[in-house]
């Protein structure tokens, strides 16, 4: 396991690419962004939007929202800066947190209409079960739903334009063919969000495709008839996460009152669902040996707000790598499983090459039941 020489990103991250000097793609993206002619992109964006903008009597674009800091930014930008008439669409998470619900209300207080797509809890729970037990990611259905729900609403309401936030493949690094794109389509979703599983695969687990309609991407024909186009706002305008956070907070948006969610470093991300902050991030840790705190600290390093060495100290102090007990009992209850089943499954997904094991290939744990890392970024 290697780490980027500029930030803390390890080589185990899916789609990770290092150059010959050992610098990761995301660090290069930040550099590349400095040379982007934003005014040119701005013109390009305006021209595109002119084709879609309505006189105000109808919605002319959809903004997928979680209620997070980025959705606030997207909604405000589109309405106030680009004079569009957005409809916000939220895919209801498995178990919404209090702060998550508050932030959706806050969006409406800011003057945005909101449609919530709530998948039936029976099938949703079974998909979470597949995610947790078969794919090693309890939030698998959520990763799909946040992309399919807005597109389905776009088709139903005949609103052709969907404005996504950043292209994570550019921001965090990804394959060359996909990172320069400014649009999101079905293949993007399948390559990066679905962990190699496809929606049709659920039939092998006894789920009927008809019971999970909100998770189906519309057919090519439906997409064509409405002309649905998904654009990454982050491609056209400079994306400054920190500024977005400060602006949202000033307006009354809520950060997590409990501080960073488990496995994270800051209190601004993954706040809406009880499983996504915490368990989802922890499952990422056991598979790849890094988690949300690393992601967040890498962004701090890339933007020069922390040095690499400072970030390493911060990482050591963070809760990354600790079993997320805050909502674990709720999760076990939600799936109707025992603590042993819960913990055994986590062990099954742990990559034993990157954690300490005994001579029988059994994972070693510390006195609190946490794994012991074999690798940790070293200071330069």
């Amino acid at each position: 396991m290697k780490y980027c020489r500029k930030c803390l990103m390890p080589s185990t991250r899916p789609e990770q690419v290092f150059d010959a000097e050992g610098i990761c793609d995301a660090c290069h993206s930040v550099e590349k962004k400095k040379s982007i002619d934003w005014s040119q992109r701005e013109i390009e964006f305006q021209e595109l939007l002119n084709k879609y903008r309505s006189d105000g009597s109808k919605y002319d674009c959809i903004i997928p929202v979680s209620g997070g800091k980025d959705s606030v930014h997207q909604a405000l930008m589109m309405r106030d800066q680009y004079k569009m008439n957005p409809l916000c669409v939220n895919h209801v998470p498995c178990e919404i947190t209090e702060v998550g619900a508050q932030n959706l209300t806050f969006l409406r207080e800011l003057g945005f209409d909101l449609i919530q797509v709530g998948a039936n809890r029976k099938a949703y729970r079974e998909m979470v079960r597949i995610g947790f037990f078969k794919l090693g990611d309890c939030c698998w259905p959520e990763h799909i739903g946040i992309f399919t729900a807005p597109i389905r609403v776009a088709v139903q309401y005949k609103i052709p334009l969907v404005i996504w936030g950043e292209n994570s493949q550019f921001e965090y690094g990804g394959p060359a063919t996909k990172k320069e794109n400014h649009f999101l389509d079905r293949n993007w979703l399948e390559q990066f969000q679905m962990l190699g599983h496809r929606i049709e695969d659920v039939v092998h687990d006894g789920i009927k495709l008809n019971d999970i309609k909100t998770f189906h991407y519309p057919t090519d024909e439906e997409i064509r008839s409405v002309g649905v186009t998904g654009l990454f706002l982050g491609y056209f305008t400079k994306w400054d996460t920190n500024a977005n956070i400060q602006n949202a907070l000033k307006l009354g948006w809520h950060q997590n009152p409990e501080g960073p969610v488990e496995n994270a470093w800051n209190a601004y991300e993954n706040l809406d669902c009880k499983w996504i902050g915490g368990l989802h991030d922890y499952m990422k840790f056991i598979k790849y040996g890094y988690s949300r705190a690393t992601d967040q600290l890498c962004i701090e390093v890339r933007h020069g707000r922390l040095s690499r060495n400072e970030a390493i100290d911060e990482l050591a102090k963070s809760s990354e790598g600790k079993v997320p007990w805050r909502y674990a009992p709720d999760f076990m209850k939600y799936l109707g499983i025992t603590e042993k089943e819960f913990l055994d499954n986590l062990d099954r997904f742990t990559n034993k090459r990157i954690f300490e094991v005994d001579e029988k290939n059994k994972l070693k744990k510390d006195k609190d039941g946490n794994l012991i890392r074999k690798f940790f970024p070293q200071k330069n």
Partner: protein
Amino acid sequence: MLRTRVIPVVLIDGYSVVKTIQFGVRRNQGNPITVARIYNTRNVDELILLDIDASEQGRSIDLFTIEDIASECFMPLTIGGGLRSVEDIRAVLEKGADKVVLNTAALENPELVRESSHYFGAQCIVGSVDIKKENDRYYVFSKGQVIDRDPFEWIRKLQDLGAGEIFVNSVDLDGTMTHCDLELISKAVEVSRVPVIYAGGVASPSDFVAPIQKGVSAVAAASIFHFTRWTPDFCKQELQKAGIPVRL
């Protein structure tokens, strides 16, 4: 009736699943255990797991990884990567492999094929050949370059030595998701009396049909399952439409 197999290939670099393009550029696809488990869930016909760095790094594929995968995957598991001796092969079979792939080691020590086939049976030994076309001729490709060996003579020889199955990889089409090399397939099938698996270049479910019609017993693929909407089920449905028996 014997069903035609669609076989996902999972390449690992020791820690992570990777997908190569023309045996070069790589994309990291995550945790091998997760990927293998997904294919088990998908009820696939067989899984080929290869550690593509093992030979060059002078180690052999990690036994614990095989054990972890075999603990939950109840389809045939074919394993390769840095296996150099009968003892290496015995170790992976004990951890849960059903068949082993010999490629580099067979080139360097053909007797290993004979010895292991005698010991574990021909059905256990898959002779793998990476093939690259240069100036209209096919060559065996090994450790990043073509070598002076006729691939079809080598396929014949592998069978004589005791390989029970031949795994043909097109280096030129690997990861390109464009089309299959039907000329290569015909030539490989012509010199084979054991089942042949072809890999390299499938772009869509319909691409599985022609190689089978040319006589291979199975088509293996990776990119199409990592990067597109198509699942192994879709591919088998397409074969079925073409009148080829599959297991659905």
